[in-house]
């Protein structure tokens, strides 16, 4: 019987969700990219509008499903859909982006139900930028929501850093019970 757990990556457009999943997925990742428009088109040609998907197979046979959400608020129905049966969340925040704390608040709000159940890991990209607030500001922001969540500085272009985020979020997740997350066995009759 396959044992599967599902984890989400979320965060603003362009922060590196698609890149992160593609970096560590054992299979060809699934992406749903569409041509970017408006101000976004000045910084990237395409953007995710449905989901990203990849899989990592652990040595014990467990399969970790990696799901990336669209970043823009107008796709928040995908946030709701993708939270179903998820067992952990990585929120990627670009420290160099103006309004990075507002970004964090948006995803703490949007994924509040999941975070209350499973916790989350905050991955802070471009953390060496002097443009962003003090790192403590992210901890304080999270604390205002009543959470204690790890804030991990990372370079999302490095598989090693993405794996570190995954290890953190997996370690926070409840282990699978025997009847959780498993695909039904086929009837051989």
């Amino acid at each position: 019987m396959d044992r599967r757990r599902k984890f989400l990556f979320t965060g603003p457009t362009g922060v590196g969700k698609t890149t992160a999943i593609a970096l560590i997925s054992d299979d060809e990742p699934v992406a749903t990219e569409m041509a970017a428009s408006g101000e976004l088109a000045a910084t990237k040609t395409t953007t995710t509008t449905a989901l990203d998907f990849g899989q990592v197979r652990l040595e014990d046979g467990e399969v970790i499903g990696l799901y990336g959400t669209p970043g823009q608020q107008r796709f928040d129905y995908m946030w709701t859909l993708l939270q179903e049966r998820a067992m952990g969340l990585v929120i990627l925040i670009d420290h160099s982006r103006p309004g990075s704390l507002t970004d964090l608040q948006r995803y703490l709000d949007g994924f509040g139900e999941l975070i209350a159940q499973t916790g989350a890991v905050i991955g802070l990209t471009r953390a060496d930028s002097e443009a962003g607030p003090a790192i403590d500001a992210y901890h304080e922001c999270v604390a205002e929501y009543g959470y204690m969540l790890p804030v991990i500085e990372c370079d999302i272009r490095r598989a090693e850093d993405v794996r570190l985020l995954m290890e953190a979020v997996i370690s926070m997740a409840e282990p699978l019970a025997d009847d959780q997350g498993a695909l039904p066995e086929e009837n051989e009759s």
Partner: protein
Amino acid sequence: MSETTRRTSRTLQVLEREFDTLFDRVPGLYGVLFCTADGDPIVERFERQMDRDRLAAMASSLVALGGTMARTGGQQHCDYMIVQSHDGFIVSLHIGRNLLLSALARRDTSLGMLLSSCRATSESVSARMSGAPITPRGGQSDEQDR
């Protein structure tokens, strides 16, 4: 009038001209929406109140997923995404690379007529949009359709 404003007006004129044609051609049609490929509404004509922002975003998600599913299934291109519900149909499709068309119709509409009319509209808009900017509602893009 600035060049950008003039070109944006032209985009809207091209799209709005298609409404009459589509509504005339497809009995049972009650809504048409043009949006950017990444789900920002541009212009719509609805015969009843609907959330155009949500519909535009969902059209983008569906068409993106449809294309990915087609490729995963060894197929080349997703022509349409069709939602068939108890009450009718919603069809979404690409217009070139940067635009989407969604059409909403009652259940008594001929699906074949709806699909062929949407395809004709897509081709008509593509042919007439060369060089026009794709501008979402309130947006500032000056990107050209390709």
